[in-house]
């Protein structure tokens, strides 16, 4: 099959970018999308041109490294599919495709289709964990988890951190990614202990990055390759609200100043 590609080319973080058009004549329908780009790059290199930079690693839909907006759809818009798992059989002969990087202030473009997603790491570093240290945890069987809860936690835990949710969001919000982690850990008894601290800390870290606010557009769940639903965001909202409710242990156990005694 034949394809016309309009690809965003930008030589570096501060460079001005532009779209370039490329034609491919001999695309096999069994190729993956990234293999199609490999073929393009081989041709570019052989012609002495600069190959298109794009990210990928596992090429099996789990590392979360790949991600291209194809005709306006992050990951190409097929249900439960990352860019690396998208196959050319889903495109038509002669089709024109526009390839753009994730667009979000929090994900600046580094080169061509490569963006910087380190903001995600910083959110996790702020609280996306259970604060135990290695060694001498209790026997695994002492923590019972209802099967349904374990399954639900797993649904959320499957997030691959690809950033498609942010790319799709008209607000550039990171809620689906962040809430998937909060919901995963919050579902489990082990994770409930510090649920309040976690949600506050992660939200705070998220706000330090130039992410937008959630206005419940639901674009994120539409493109999430792991089909994580916005029920995660609802859970996070609930946790966040509850974390601020009175009745939570927030100090006050000891008197700060004893009023009846004369000051010394």
């Amino acid at each position, binding site marked *: 099959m034949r394809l016309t590609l309009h690809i965003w080319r930008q030589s570096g973080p501060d460079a001005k970018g532009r779209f370039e058009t490329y034609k491919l004549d001999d695309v096999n329908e069994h190729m993956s999308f990234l293999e199609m780009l490999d073929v393009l790059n081989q041709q570019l290199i052989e012609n002495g041109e600069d190959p298109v930079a794009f990210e990928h690693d596992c090429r099996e839909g789990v590392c979360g490294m790949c991600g291209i907006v194809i005709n306006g759809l992050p990951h190409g818009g097929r249900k439960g599919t990352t860019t690396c798992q998208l196959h050319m059989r889903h495109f038509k002969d002669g089709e024109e495709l526009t390839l*753009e990087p994730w*667009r979000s202030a929090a994900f600046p473009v580094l080169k061509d289709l490569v963006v910087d997603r380190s903001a995600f790491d910083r959110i996790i570093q702020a609280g996306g964990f259970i604060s135990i240290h290695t060694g001498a945890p209790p026997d695994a069987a002492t923590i019972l988890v209802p099967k349904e809860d374990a399954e639900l936690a797993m649904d959320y835990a499957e997030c691959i951190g690809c950033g498609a949710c942010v790319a799709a969001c008209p607000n550039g919000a990171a809620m689906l990614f962040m809430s998937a982690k909060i919901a995963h850990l919050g579902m489990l008894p082990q994770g409930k202990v510090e649920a309040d601290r976690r949600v506050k800390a992660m939200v705070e870290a998220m706000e330090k990055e*130039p992410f937008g606010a959630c206005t419940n*557009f*639901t*674009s994120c769940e539409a493109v999430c390759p792991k089909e994580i639903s916005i029920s995660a*965001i609802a859970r996070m909202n609930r946790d966040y609200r509850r974390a601020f409710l009175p009745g939570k242990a927030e100090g006050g156990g000891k008197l700060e100043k004893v009023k009846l005694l004369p000051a010394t």
Partner: protein
Amino acid sequence: MNESPGFYSSSVGKKILMAVTGMILFFFVLFHMAGNLQIFIGQEELDRYAKFLHSVPEILWLVRIAVTFSFLVHIVAAVQVWLQSRRARPIRYKVRVNLATDMAARTMIWTGPIILLFVLYHLLHLTYGALYPDLFVEGHVYQNLINSFRLWPIAVVYIVANIGLGFHLYHGLWSLTQTLGWTHPRFDRCRRVASAVIGIGVAAANISIPVSILAGLVR
């Protein structure tokens, strides 16, 4: 994970406040609508109801303050959230696709200001009577309505604004359950449907007043 800053400083907190204030405003809208629908019972009913509202000024003012406060918080938070989101997405895609979002969601930022302008208009028009002094007599609610809505430009303003309100409510109600975390997979479909029904219902009920007057059904 130290002491984290206040609730309001995060966009999540702001959205929750928007949800709570939105809910207060929604109840006000419902109440207001129910009161006004008495126009279909008759002149005395409506005017008596209006008098009753004014009979305990403390309560009236309490409600007014609560609603005004909610309104302000709702608006300020909305603007802040909107600005934050604008900053977060400085570059648009060349190929634009609307992903899953519906029109109501995308137009919140327009239906919001429409409602704000309308509320100001409405206050000046029917609460203070400053806008069209010729058409307004203090305390004569029924007659004021008839006088105004007989004129189609005024009726159209109300109709358009209420269509906006309907859209705003449709997304807003659904959205506030999400923002407050009042969700459950079993009720997810209901939430959508219920919001739509309420949004359309409120808009239709409110619109029925000018339409009936314009059509001469109520005189």
